[in-house]
């Protein structure tokens, strides 16, 4: 039972990180039809920005801020300007392929420039264990979960409660009408790229202390983000949250109760089942059919 509680908690912690990544993934899809195959690498890279800052002697909080800033510049602005903008009008597929090439580029660049070895990454959250009612609980898992949840809530608040947030939603839901109303659609799209970059940076700083920072760390994360986004419903932020948490829990439980060899298959079956039987996702609304 104790084991189960911790498994669940660890699952929720990973799931919350998946959710962050998946939300970014959906945002990009909604506002600019970008299927970002490099999303996993986007999570891997910010940790190395921060490590580089640490290596020149900055304190951790500052290094994390630098990492965040660099991510928003490189994975946000530059990604949009250099890759997405020129490719967008040519359809979804060439852009998707381009992000695949980008994922190779990021992975190999980190490997060559930094190291092929896994690096330890300091956590900015408390660690250790806590004993409540005779159950030992991992504080690390708990704090990751809570922190990630706070980020998600803050994002939701931003999107729902601020005028800019609502303009972004309007842009995602109907860019044509948004433009008619005078919403600066282009700037809103840039904001979504910045938010995505911030989300992956936060995810990076949360997950790297657990699994170490390594050039290849993005491979599984990217896949997890796709699956979370699709399982939850490709067009919905809420869906990405539910999908991420569900996937994290399923993933962790599968690791414990399914043979280790096939634990990776469980999320894939989940994905296939959802696509075939509920393609709009668990939280999604069916798209109206037009002929």
């Amino acid at each position, binding site marked *: 039972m104790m084991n189960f509680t911790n498994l669940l908690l660890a699952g929720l912690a990973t799931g919350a990180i998946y959710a962050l990544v998946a939300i970014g993934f959906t945002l990009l899809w909604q506002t600019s039809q970008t299927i970002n195959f490099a999303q996993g690498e986007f999570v891997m890279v910010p940790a190395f920005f921060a490590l580089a800052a640490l290596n020149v002697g900055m304190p951790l909080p500052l290094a994390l801020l630098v990492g965040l800033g660099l991510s928003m510049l490189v994975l946000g602005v530059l990604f949009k300007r250099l890759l997405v903008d020129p*490719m967008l009008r040519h359809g979804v597929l060439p852009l998707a*392929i381009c992000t695949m090439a*980008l994922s190779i*580029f990021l992975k*190999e660049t980190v490997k*060559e420039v930094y190291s092929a070895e896994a690096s330890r990454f300091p956590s900015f959250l408390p660690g250790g264990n806590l004993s409540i009612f005779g159950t030992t609980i991992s504080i690390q898992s708990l704090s990751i979960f809570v922190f990630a949840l706070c980020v998600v809530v803050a994002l939701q608040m931003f999107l729902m409660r601020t005028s800019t947030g609502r303009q972004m939603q309007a842009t995602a839901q109907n860019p044509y009408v948004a433009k008619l109303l005078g919403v600066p659609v282009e700037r809103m799209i840039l904001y979504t790229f910045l938010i995505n970059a911030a989300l992956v940076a936060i995810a990076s700083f949360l997950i790297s202390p657990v699994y170490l920072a390594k050039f290849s760390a993005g491979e599984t994360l990217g896949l997890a983000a*796709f699956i979370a986004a699709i399982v939850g419903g490709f067009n919905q932020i809420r869906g990405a949250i539910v999908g991420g948490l569900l996937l994290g829990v399923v993933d962790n439980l599968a690791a414990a109760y399914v043979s280790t060899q096939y634990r990776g*298959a469980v999320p894939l079956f989940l994905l296939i089942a959802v696509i075939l039987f509920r393609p709009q996702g668990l939280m999604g609304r069916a798209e109206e059919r037009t*002929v």
Partner: protein
Amino acid sequence: MSRSLLLKGFGLLIVAGLIFIPLTLNRYGIYIMSLWAIMTIAAMGLNLTLGYAGQVSLAQGAFVGLGAYTVAIMMSAGFGFWLPLVLAIAITFVVGWLLGYPALRVQHHYLAFVTLAFSTLVFLVFRNEEWLTKGIYGIMGFKRPTAFGVSFQKPIEFYYFTLAALALASAFVAWLVRSPWGRAFLALRENPIRALSLGVDTRRYTLMAFAIGSAMGGFAGALYAPLVEFVDPTPFTLALSLNLLMMVIVGGSGFFFGPFLGAAIGVLLPEWLRFAHGWYLIIYALFVMILLIKTPTGILGIIENMIAARKTRAASAARAAASATLDKA
């Protein structure tokens, strides 16, 4: 007239190059050329599914793996080469057919993700079903085939064998895309609703597009196993599927010669960049990105666009002239 003659000459030159240049290469160079031929076959299959019939698949690498494992397992069991080859094609044909069913329900990115999941699942089976695949240790100890009394043991011999296979596969695809099926595939890609209204049974053609494309992947895999003489799961991760997709798009999806070019970029270019050591993949990825930004419809696509633009300009000039006379009348 002279232009088609020029094209023929150019084609002959390339074929001659493919035949004679490897004679000057070392063992590794010949291996790379053989790999190119094999990857071209696999990419041609994907080009059929994606480029001609418009069905996105991220699973072509898995079919190459299925083909390779079928041949490796059976050859290790002493079955020679030909029966395993036929079986590899048959198995990938059937599995490809089955993978086509999701395409009847979902399209575009959803279909991409289903095939992506399938690809990863197949990889897990390769890695985990040790009783059959020997898991991460891989299968070895099978020999390159002998055909018609000729042995294909030496690298250069096996290269010619793969080249012949490529010629066969090319002839098959050329014939197929010019057949009524090719027309139906194109109709399926361009406008499935209109195709249906013209009596095209889009379901069957979708399934066939997957089955045939996958079988070509299986064929490529069946050649890959004896080329490397060792089969383990590592080459058949999702990365291979993505690479094959990249080859098709970069070369020019829906163009007959697209896969040849795409595979040349995907297989040969990284090798030429070996001098850059660890940086070669970085340069390669950059190259692909820049290429796609410059030519989003692939290399052959851009050539066709140039020709089409010239024609449009001519047509528009003609129309302007015609409308001027209309106004006078």
